[in-house]
């Protein structure tokens, strides 16, 4: 039982990270039907910028909470700007071309950004300060570290904030209507280009938050760290029903859990196989994901 509980905690933590990244995929897909391959790179860039700001603030003698929240906010803002730049340069001119050419442009951007990070930050891992992340609760043999608690609660907060943003504000309404019909929403006075940029910015900001959490929790970031979680999060987004925000959250948690439980109970080397087999099986029985993609209200 203790073993199960511990694995459950592990699964929820990993699932939170996947859910945050998957949201970016799903929002961008919902609004312009693009698999944004560069999204994993936003995640990596967020992790890097986070550690840069954090070590700077620490060296200036700022208290721990200022370091954490300051670098979190700055990194999210940075990635939002990066995403808007990528969108304007690489995707916007291709808005009316075939979807595959945008896909390829995204792939090119992904390679470009990854190597840009490598050139500016070096090939070595960059370590996060560990003094902020010590300690935890111990209940019998079950460990719940403060970091895990931090990750899960921050994720929950961001998810709630995102839901409020999408369903309760004007900009959320604009996003939903642009996702449904670009031409019609333009006719009623919604600026489609601006809405798309905002969607990119929000998705990338969430990825940046995930990047910082990963860096803090696991201890380091590396320039190519966006790739594997990127693919998993993409799978998670599709599993939930791509374009569907609730679906992406659920998909993220499912992929995280499956991975942890497969590694914990069956075999560590085949854990990704299980994740993908579950994905294929779900899609076989529900060809448009768990939540389905055409639940109009939740599509962004």
């Amino acid at each position, binding site marked *: 039982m203790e073993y199960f509980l511990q694995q459950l905690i592990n699964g929820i933590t990993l699932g939170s990270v996947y859910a945050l990244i998957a949201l970016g995929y799903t929002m961008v897909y919902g609004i312009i039907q693009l698999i944004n391959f560069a999204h994993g790179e936003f995640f990596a860039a967020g992790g890097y910028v986070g550690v840069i700001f954090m070590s700077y603030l620490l060296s200036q003698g700022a208290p721990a909470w200022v370091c954490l929240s300051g670098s979190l906010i700055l990194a999210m803002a940075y990635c939002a700007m990066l995403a808007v730049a990528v969108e304007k340069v690489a995707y916007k001119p291709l808005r009316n071309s075939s979807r595959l*050419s945008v896909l390829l442009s995204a792939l090119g951007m992904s390679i*470009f950004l990854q190597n840009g990070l490598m050139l500016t930050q070096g090939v070595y891992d960059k370590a996060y300060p560990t003094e902020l992340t010590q300690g935890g609760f111990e209940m019998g043999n079950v460990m719940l570290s403060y970091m895990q608690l931090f990750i899960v609660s921050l994720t929950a907060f961001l998810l709630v904030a995102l839901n409020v943003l999408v369903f309760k504000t004007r900009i959320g309404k604009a996003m939903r209507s642009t996702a449904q019909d670009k031409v019609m929403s333009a006719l009623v006075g919604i600026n489609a280009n601006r809405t798309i940029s905002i969607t990119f910015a929000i998705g990338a900001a969430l990825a940046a938050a995930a990047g910082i959490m990963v860096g803090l929790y696991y201890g380091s970031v590396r320039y190519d760290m966006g790739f594997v979680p990127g693919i998993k999060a993409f799978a998670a987004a599709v599993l939930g029903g791509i374009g569907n925000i609730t679906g992406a959250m659920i998909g993220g948690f499912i992929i995280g859990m499956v991975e942890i439980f497969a590694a914990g109970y069956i075999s560590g*080397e085949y854990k990704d196989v299980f994740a993908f087999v579950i994905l294929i099986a779900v899609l076989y029985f529900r060809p448009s994901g768990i939540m389905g993609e055409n639940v109009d209200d939740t599509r962004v």
Partner: protein
Amino acid sequence: MTIPEFKKHWTSLGIGMVWLFILLWPLLGIKPEGLEVASTFNVWWRIALGCSFLLFLYQLNKAGAFKFISRPAGAVAGSMKSATSMVPMAVWFVIGIACTALIPQFAGRYAQDVAINCMIYVCLGLGLNIVVGLAGMLDLGYIAFYGIGAYTYALLSVQFQLSFWICLPISAGMAGLGAWLIGYCSMRMRGDYLAIVTLGFAEICRMVLNNWMSLTNGPNGVTGIKAPGLYWFDFTNGMTLEHIWLKKLSLIYYVILILVVFTIIAVYRLQHSRIGRAWEAIREDETAAEVMGVPTFYMKLLAYCSGACFGGMAGAFYAARMRFVSPESFTFLESAMVLSMVVLGGMGSIPGVILGALALIALPEIFREFELYRMLVFGGVMTLMMLFRPQGMLPSKRTMRSGKD
């Protein structure tokens, strides 16, 4: 070119450059020791200057400053085009093959090696072209079939000492079988769901190859694979037939050349057959095709399997040429690479795919001089190519309507 337009261009360039500086600065300028601007500025002004110069050229071109060059050049290009179109395609094809066949006589080892890699990817690209370019299905896991083919030949050669020429069809068949298995459960899915399923399948394949120690030797890879063999005349004592191993690069070059020619002809014939027209109908509008009596499910499955067969063939050759296979060669990045060749070259067009493969294999090799900047430049060029020619370098004549599912 109007004045407001002119102003607008420079304003957006200005905003872009400020934006770029803000993006660059945290990466280069913020260090625990303190903040500095000099190093960021050093990188930034070069980029800014280059971009301004390009914009300047672009505006001059728009304003017609280069007409004195572009007009005669356009005329020459036009007359060249009409002259080349006089000669039938088949003649160009033969000339192309003849030139390619001569390469090993002149080129060094390195060029031969790059040429062989190019041709492997031509096979792969043409195979994927059936799935993506003709039938219009997005496949992100094509490399799995390449891997299946490679391992099939590797294991048959090492365990049973079977000859390359026997294994070639077996490898193609195994890849086709794998495609049938995964295609049968996923062909009903639409566009991007199919993409993730194929991606997942490729990852599963790679992990099984990496983890099934008793069969594939896991990450250690399979060594001791035989090169293709051939019976050739031996003139030392009279004329006898002797078995030789095609180990030398210049000899194995011709094996892949034959495979490429075979693939080109096969794909060409497929494309212009009844089946090919059915595929193109599915690509343009699946519902309409179904209504017109095209069995869409089986046609898509057929496209998927036949594409995979070419991949398997290329894989068998890869194993025979490297004489070593390991799962590292079959990652998602390779799938993306092959897909890029198809899209970059021009979907559905055979010369386009060939050109795409040449570009994507030769470019990183040329960029080797840039060392660490190699992949950076490569990624940038890929995006730029798409921005300037979204339909690919040599798009097919029967273009796609929109490229939607």
